[in-house]
């Protein structure tokens, strides 16, 4: 039996689905985990461990296992994406105005462009300057470098949450969605985990649209259309920063959804595709991941086996049907129905 709960945490909507398990126990465990995530690496809490470690910039600083995992995950993502998704965007984020919870940012934003305000954008410092010591579990962040683990951090939280949901809920299958970052584990319900592919994770699941089903793995979406605000100079910004400029990315893709083995991998690939701009599609195609890309003009591109809702799935001998439907039906293998 599939049971479902939803609530808010980490500034976004949390969806929890548990198959043949204890939903209450699973939810309790996921809530505890997300609370720990918030206390550990939130950029918007001055008392978070990340912000305290940040104050020790320039010195090797011991960190908790969870912060260690979040930072090493972010470093791995940066390496694997060639720096397209880099945790050292914290300062750039602050410069363009995303230094508080989005609701607070929106409440304080100017209502028009302001010529009298100039903000100084600069390339981000780069993840290569961060030093890790696994034996001592210490991190040394260079001076004047600010980390933002938001991109990989939320996806990591989804990956971790689905595991605790499975374990504590004694479930045969589970799904955790954190604002569009969806991780699954165990067995999927009949017909798979059905996910509505949208540009805004706040879209109700029952809305008509493109639904895909996955048997396992994760699906994550990155985009530039939702988290937007006006910075102090009145220019509209979004939260995906181009490492080369420190400004919000301008490119051909506005939303990218990707299916991968883990949510971190899916999220990193989706974000990198947008950040890489014109080269994003080729970069992604080389990775052979199912993906749905929405261009800035609204056109949708599907690659890597992402199903096209406009094409009826056919049997393996579908090409024959185009040539001779009757002959193909006569040759239909036994037990096909």
């Amino acid at each position, binding site marked *: 039996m599939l049971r479902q709960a939803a609530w808010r945490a980490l500034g976004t909507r949390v969806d929890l689905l548990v198959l043949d398990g204890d939903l209450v126990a699973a939810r309790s465990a996921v809530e505890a985990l997300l609370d720990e995530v918030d206390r550990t690496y939130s950029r918007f809490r001055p008392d978070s461990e990340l912000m305290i470690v940040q104050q020790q910039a320039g010195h090797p600083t011991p960190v908790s296992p969870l912060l260690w995992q979040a930072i090493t995950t972010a470093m791995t993502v940066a390496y694997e994406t060639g720096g397209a998704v880099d945790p050292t965007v914290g300062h750039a984020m602050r410069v363009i105005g995303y230094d508080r919870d989005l609701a607070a940012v929106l409440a304080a934003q100017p209502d028009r462009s302001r010529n009298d305000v100039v903000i100084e954008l600069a390339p981000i410092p780069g993840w290569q300057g961060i030093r890790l010591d696994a034996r001592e579990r210490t991190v040394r962040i260079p001076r004047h470098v600010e980390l933002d683990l938001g991109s990989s951090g939320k996806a990591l939280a989804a990956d971790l949450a689905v595991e605790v949901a499975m374990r504590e809920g004694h479930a045969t299958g589970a799904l955790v969605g954190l604002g*569009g970052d969806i991780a699954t584990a165990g067995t999927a319900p009949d017909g798979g985990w*059905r996910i509505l592919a*949208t540009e805004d994770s706040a879209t109700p699941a029952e809305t008509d649209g493109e639904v895909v089903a996955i048997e396992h793995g994760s699906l994550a979406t990155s985009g530039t259309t939702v988290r937007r605000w006006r910075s102090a100079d009145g220019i509209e910004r979004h939260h995906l920063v181009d490492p080369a400029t420190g400004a919000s990315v301008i490119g051909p893709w506005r939303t990218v959804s990707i299916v991968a083995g*883990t949510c971190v991998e*899916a999220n990193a690939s989706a974000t990198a595709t947008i950040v890489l701009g014109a080269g994003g599609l080729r970069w992604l195609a080389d990775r052979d991941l199912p993906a749905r890309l929405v261009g800035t003009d609204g056109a949708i591109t599907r690659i890597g086996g992402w199903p096209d809702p406009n094409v009826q799935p056919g049997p393996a001998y579908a090409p024959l049907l185009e040539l001779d439907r009757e002959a193909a039906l006569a040759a239909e293998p036994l037990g096909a129905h």
Partner: protein
Amino acid sequence: MTPDLRARTNRRTEATQRRAELTAATAVIGIVATAGFGWLAAETYAGTPKADTSGSTNSTTTVPEATQPSTVTNPYYGGSTNDGTTRNRSGSSSSGSSISGSSSSGITRGTGRAHVSSGSS
């Protein structure tokens, strides 16, 4: 048979013998190399019980050079966990940390109402 012809015959016999030796040696080397490669693959494949799990988190200092972060294996990037075990989740890669077609998630067109929605947040 002239001496010249006899010498030529002897050289031909020696060459034939040499070729047979080389063929046998090559076959032996090939068998040994194949077996050795198989053994190496089996020993280094992280998904087998033989995989060396001694390289735990506390035994090594990793990522001293920021340009080589891949020395920190990350289970959430399709790699292995810090204790050397592979992540027990279908669809994740056990081949390392690179982004590649590791999903094989059986993505299909969904039928019926969606359980959740995915979008930017």
